[in-house]
């Protein structure tokens, strides 16, 4: 098993430019330290119609109400502002930025455990005698004996057979080489919605870990199989 940079084609160049937008890193930094309700706020605003901050404050009294601690409110305000900045970019840019954000957030949280040097983006995984999948994995941790591969999705609807096969095939191919490759889906959506989506998927996913909106912190702790998809 070995890792390789994705081809530097037009898609990769465009994607790198999106990843480099300052608002992506800013949002990822804030959301890495956020509560699950603050993350829900970010998801709602970036999915939302209104750009009126007072409207969002009214929708989340547990974040902006009069009894909220000033430090918590300050973080919620920062998250609201950055989410509105992304929501204000129009549908196409918004979609691209949201995808980039989930990857950046995953990198940020994994980096707390693995160290940023071991966490890579847009990498292909190659196996002897196996035709290489052209699509890179969104995020990888490349450590001998305990590598990890992640696919990142904005919403549960992004979970599909292709993604599940890619992850499970890689895991199986690693196993055939007597290597360990843990695989996971990171979805910036509620676990319940992800479970509903997965329930009807026939593609193999029982050894693919699910990391949902409520459990993102788990990326910073050791990889376990307790939350298999």
């Amino acid at each position, binding site marked *: 098993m070995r890792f390789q940079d994705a081809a530097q084609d037009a898609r990769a160049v465009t994607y790198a430019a999106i990843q480099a937008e300052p608002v992506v890193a800013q949002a990822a930094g804030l959301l890495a330290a956020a509560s*699950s309700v603050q993350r829900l706020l970010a998801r709602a605003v970036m999915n939302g*119609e209104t750009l009126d901050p007072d409207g969002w404050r009214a*929708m989340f*009294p547990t974040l902006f109400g009069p009894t909220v601690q000033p430090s918590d409110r300050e973080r919620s305000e920062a998250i609201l502002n950055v989410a509105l900045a992304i929501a204000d970019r129009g549908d196409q840019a918004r979609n691209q930025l949201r995808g980039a954000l989930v990857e950046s957030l995953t990198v940020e949280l994994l980096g707390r455990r693995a160290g940023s040097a071991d966490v890579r983006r847009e990498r292909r995984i190659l196996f002897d005698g196996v035709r290489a999948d052209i699509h890179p994995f969104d995020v990888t941790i490349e450590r001998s004996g305990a590598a990890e591969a992640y696919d990142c999705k904005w919403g*549960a609807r992004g979970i599909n057979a292709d993604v599940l096969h890619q992850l499970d095939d890689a895991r199986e191919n690693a196993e055939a080489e007597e290597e360990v490759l843990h695989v996971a889906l990171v979805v910036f959506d509620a676990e319940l919605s992800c479970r509903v989506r997965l329930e009807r998927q026939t593609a193999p996913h029982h050894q693919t870990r699910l990391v949902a909106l409520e459990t993102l912190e788990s990326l910073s702790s050791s990889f376990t199989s307790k939350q298999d998809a």
Partner: protein
Amino acid sequence: MDEASTHADLARDALAAYEGLLSLAEDVEDEWTYVNDLSAAWQARIGELVDEHGAEPATALEETAILRTIEEIEQISDPHRAIDWLSTFPQIVLVTLGGRR
């Protein structure tokens, strides 16, 4: 809504609005099954909330939050965005009214 509103009243209003969102999301024919499974799962969660906390009186902040969130989803005209909100809207309702997400 008068001062006697309860969590059950707000949940009922939210579920009525959710039906409109579901109807819009069903326009994405390829996702019909997922959309209906998803909405059924979240409706059940809100039902649990009503069973456990429905009799509790709603505060003014809770009432405003639910009504404002209903207004937000009523602005949605894109069925794909409606699918996203089939997941997001009930979570906001549950967070606001203290239910299990």
